[in-house]
């Protein structure tokens, strides 16, 4: 008979483990008795925010999840889209913010490891990763340590696996100082027929644990665990940091894909948050079956581990497979060939109950589906934060702005040297971004392009979110996150197919925070609907706060687009002198939330740029048509820093200057640095200019011919005249210098 906890102690332990008393009551009602220690641990983890989405699930129903490309929407380990000829792409993004704030290298590394397991669990070979990062200002040593460590960890893990890290984004804002964000996205490729679901089925089948040993890693990580009163004997405070072993993961990828290919598995699940409890209960509930697990069979890394420790350990690099008994030997042979441990730890039953035993004795016994599905769902209160009024009514025109070309050139230098704008090469130089030979457009352009070998196709991928905009207006900010990702992908020639997201917010139990969450989800949903692009996977990370202050609302969008013809891909670099420069879209006076305001006036205020979804969509469509017609030599969208930064970047990476005029009727600062959405700087050969404009004229989009590529200076009539070498010197080495603790002297940026 199960050893229950003392009824008077159990509720207290439940609270320590992160359940509230009502939730505890629900556990008692399900079981019809006081839970055992193991059961309480299992419920508390499965019903935690992280596993149950209890505060977010209702809002997430706003997302459109269906579309022509979708093979598998949200709900599985990753979403899957079809990309033609029987090829499918699985992808998902996930956060590893809190572990990374404690130990940036291992936190980021295991974040990459975790999301990659989600991908090969689906039967897909991981082919690319992206990383989306947020830190405080690099003036602070701690922030440099976090940034440097996280980048090294992402590289260390992905490089070892041989999965290229092809893109990402990074912002440095004080709002993230106490709570950095480390979001990782993984993309996998498979044949459609190999799509595998994490489901347990077939009573009598065995449950096989593959991969690393189980230690006490991660126990006590998220929730406040192990209060002394309940531990029989005081134990030394154990570190909860998980150390990643990318080598083991590499073997897991190869072995699992081989097992699936050979048809040796009924189901496959990865062990992520809440470890064995989560993957086993989800697999069981999907299959409508029960499981019977013996913890002493689990290969332990440490001595005297308790059943609940086995069940909730977050030791990395482990997979759970369900295997028919007659295929067990063959399955284990594959594991052995790859040098992996594989151990039968239990069996599938027809009872629907999740039973955990220690040396045969039952220590937990509950309806399996209740762990995964019966967590309470909340409708959190929401209130629009008061601070928004003051922020949104701020008028950037009320500030003094430079007007002389020399001053404006200086501002451009400073913007290019801003950590939020400067070259990211310091980061992606540490990532193997070429292995597998499919990265046709390397990091450094708007979107990375990866070919699908054996087909004419490629995918273009980008991850984006300007948290500042989301802070100033979460509804618009979230739409812009989508629009920018789609625009980046369009600039490479990709038509958006689907997105994943990682929604990073503060404490959802605070009505003001929850409002920003709800508005962001609404904004993202509306943008997706307007573009007909579904959300196929995602992740919510709440409680990103420090000292009671939430981060900027940060709904990161990871978008995958498809190029039917990989040879049509486009990069942002200017190509040849004499090429014609055309601006798609139209500039408005929108300095609210801009990098210019931040860098020059040290302000984050004003309304963010407006987003007209129909106009944005038309711009992308016009560009994509022109690209498909083979007319476009370069394309680069306007984002932080406005059209001036866009032009400067295309000059710098192309090694060419440009001479042009911006003939809007705006003040020079707006003209150059306004962050109006829906704008793309496009170039074409002189002979194609007419045809290009012909294509654009077929759409309801404003366009203007700005000038031409050439020379060694960026010259904007009446507004700017700067040497490209000087711009490069401002833009190129900033990150490396900042990481090494140097503050950049503006002297250094000027021509010597």
């Amino acid at each position, binding site marked *: 008979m199960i050893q229950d906890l003392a009824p008077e102690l159990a509720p207290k332990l439940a609270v320590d483990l992160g359940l509230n008393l009502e939730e505890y009551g629900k556990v008692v009602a399900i079981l019809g008795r006081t839970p055992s220690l193991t059961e309480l641990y299992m419920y508390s983890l499965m019903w935690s925010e992280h596993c149950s989405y209890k505060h977010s699930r209702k809002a997430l129903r706003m997302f459109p999840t269906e579309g022509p490309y979708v093979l598998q929407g949200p709900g599985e380990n990753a979403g899957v889209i079809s990309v033609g000829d029987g090829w499918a792409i699985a992808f998902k993004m996930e956060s590893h913010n809190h572990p990374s704030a404690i130990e940036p290298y291992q936190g980021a590394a295991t974040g990459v490891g975790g999301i990659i397991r989600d991908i090969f669990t689906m039967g897909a070979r991981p082919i690319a990763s992206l990383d989306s990062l947020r830190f405080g200002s690099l003036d602070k040593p701690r922030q440099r340590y976090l940034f440097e460590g996280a980048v090294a960890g992402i590289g260390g893990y992905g490089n070892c696996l041989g999965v290229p890290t092809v893109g990402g984004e990074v912002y440095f804002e004080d709002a993230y100082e106490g709570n950095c964000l480390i979001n990782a996205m993984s993309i996998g490729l498979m044949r459609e027929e190999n799509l595998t679901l994490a489901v347990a089925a077939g009573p009598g089948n065995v449950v096989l644990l593959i991969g690393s040993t189980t230690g006490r890693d991660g126990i006590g990580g998220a929730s406040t665990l192990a209060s002394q009163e309940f531990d029989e004997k005081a134990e030394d405070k154990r570190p909860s940091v998980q150390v990643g072993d990318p080598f083991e993961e590499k073997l897991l990828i190869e072995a699992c894909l081989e097992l699936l290919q050979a048809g040796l598995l009924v189901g496959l699940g990865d062990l992520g948050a809440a470890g064995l409890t989560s993957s086993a209960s989800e697999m069981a509930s999907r299959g409508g079956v029960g499981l019977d697990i013996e913890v002493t069979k689990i290969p332990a890394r440490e001595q005297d581990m308790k059943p609940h420790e086995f069940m909730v350990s977050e030791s990395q690099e482990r997979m759970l497979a369900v295997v028919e008994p007659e295929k067990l030997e063959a399955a284990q042979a594959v594991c052995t060939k790859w040098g992996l441990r594989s151990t039968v730890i239990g069996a599938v039953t027809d009872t629907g109950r999740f039973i955990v035993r220690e040396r045969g004795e039952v220590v937990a016994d509950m309806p399996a589906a209740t762990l995964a599905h019966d967590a309470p769902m909340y409708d959190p209160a929401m209130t629009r934060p008061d601070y928004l009024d003051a922020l949104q009514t701020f008028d950037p025109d009320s500030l003094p702005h430079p007007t002389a070309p020399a001053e404006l050139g200086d501002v451009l230098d400073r913007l290019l040297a801003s950590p939020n704008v400067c070259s990211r090469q310091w980061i992606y130089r540490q990532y193997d971004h070429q*292995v597998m030979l499919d990265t046709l457009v390397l990091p450094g352009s708007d979107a990375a392009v990866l070919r699908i070998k054996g087909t004419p196709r490629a995918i273009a991928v980008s991850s984006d979110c300007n948290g500042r905009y989301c802070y100033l207006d979460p509804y618009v900010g979230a739409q812009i996150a989508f629009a920018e990702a789609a625009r980046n992908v369009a600039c490479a020639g990709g038509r958006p197919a689907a997105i994943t997201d990682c929604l990073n917010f503060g404490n959802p139990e605070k009505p003001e925070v929850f409002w920003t969450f709800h508005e962001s989800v609404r904004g993202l949903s509306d943008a997706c609907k307007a573009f007909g692009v579904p959300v196929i996977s995602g992740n919510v990370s709440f409680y990103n706060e420090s000292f009671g202050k939430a981060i900027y609302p940060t709904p990161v969008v990871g978008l995958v687009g498809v190029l039917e013809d990989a040879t049509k891909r486009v990069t942002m670099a200017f190509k040849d002198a004499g090429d014609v420069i055309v601006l798609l879209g139209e500039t408005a006076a929108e300095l609210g939330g801009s990098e210019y305001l931040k860098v020059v006036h040290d302000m984050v205020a004003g309304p963010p740029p407006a987003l007209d979804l129909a106009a944005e969509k038309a711009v992308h469509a016009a560009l994509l048509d022109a690209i498909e017609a083979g007319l476009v030599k370069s394309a680069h969208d306007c984002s932080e820093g406005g059209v001036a930064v866009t032009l400067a970047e295309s000059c710098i990476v192309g090694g060419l200057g440009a001479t042009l005029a911006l003939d809007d009727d705006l003040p020079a600062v707006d003209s150059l640095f306004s962050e109006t959405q829906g704008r793309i700087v496009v170039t074409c050969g002189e002979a194609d200019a007419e045809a290009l404009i012909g294509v654009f004229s077929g759409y309801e989009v404003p366009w203007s011919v700005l000038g031409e590529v050439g020379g060694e200076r960026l010259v904007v009539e009446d507004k700017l005249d700067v040497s490209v070498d000087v711009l490069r010197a401002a833009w190129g080495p900033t990150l490396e210098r900042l990481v090494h603790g140097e503050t950049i002297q503006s002297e250094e940026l000027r021509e010597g």
Partner: protein
Amino acid sequence: MRRAVKFGVVIFPGSNCEQDVIHATRLLGYQSEYIWHGDTDLRGFDAIVLPGGFSYGDYIRTGAVARFSPVMAEVARFAEKGGPVLGVCNGFQILTEAHMLPGALLRNRGLKFICETVPLRVERSACQWVDLAEGAVVNIPINHNEGNYICDAETLARMEDKGQIVLRYCEPDGTRAPGGSAPNGAFDDIAGVCNERGNVFGLMPHPERVCDADANGTDGRPFFTSIAALLAGLAG
């Protein structure tokens, strides 16, 4: 009919560039097949490639564990008989650990992993894998954390003398910067070396990454075509 040249590409646990070498060599028209690290039969292969990656996680030291794989004794025998062996990146590290090539590879100066395309200068050497003119500059990606080549001065002098230095990091114009051109701090800018006989060649850059005209350049092709031409000549 003469049999086409056949490359064998060894898979160690943790290798991750083996499929890239297969892709590149097949694209160039050669036969190319995997060899499992536990296998000991190299019959039928004309040239062996130890690919890049992180064999055994690069734990303890890069290449330290892989060198004891059963296949490595055969690779050594194959090389002794004059068979051509190429080690790329981790493969180079394995060859030095196995003492099939002189020197060792330490962590990069600056302790950062480096992935970027770099110019390399072709030196006059005995290397059978290279038929480029002395002084030619090729642009090839490097991708490693431990590419900082080291050997003692005596070994360097001997290698110079015997034409064992095959590639050096350089500036885009082929010159070497006074402070060194190696991004990883390699001694004397050394990027690739061969044995005295010239049949065993190890290099940190990844020629297989630049063989496909559809993706990122073709500067890596000569390394595979030259050995294939040599083998074909011998066979013919």
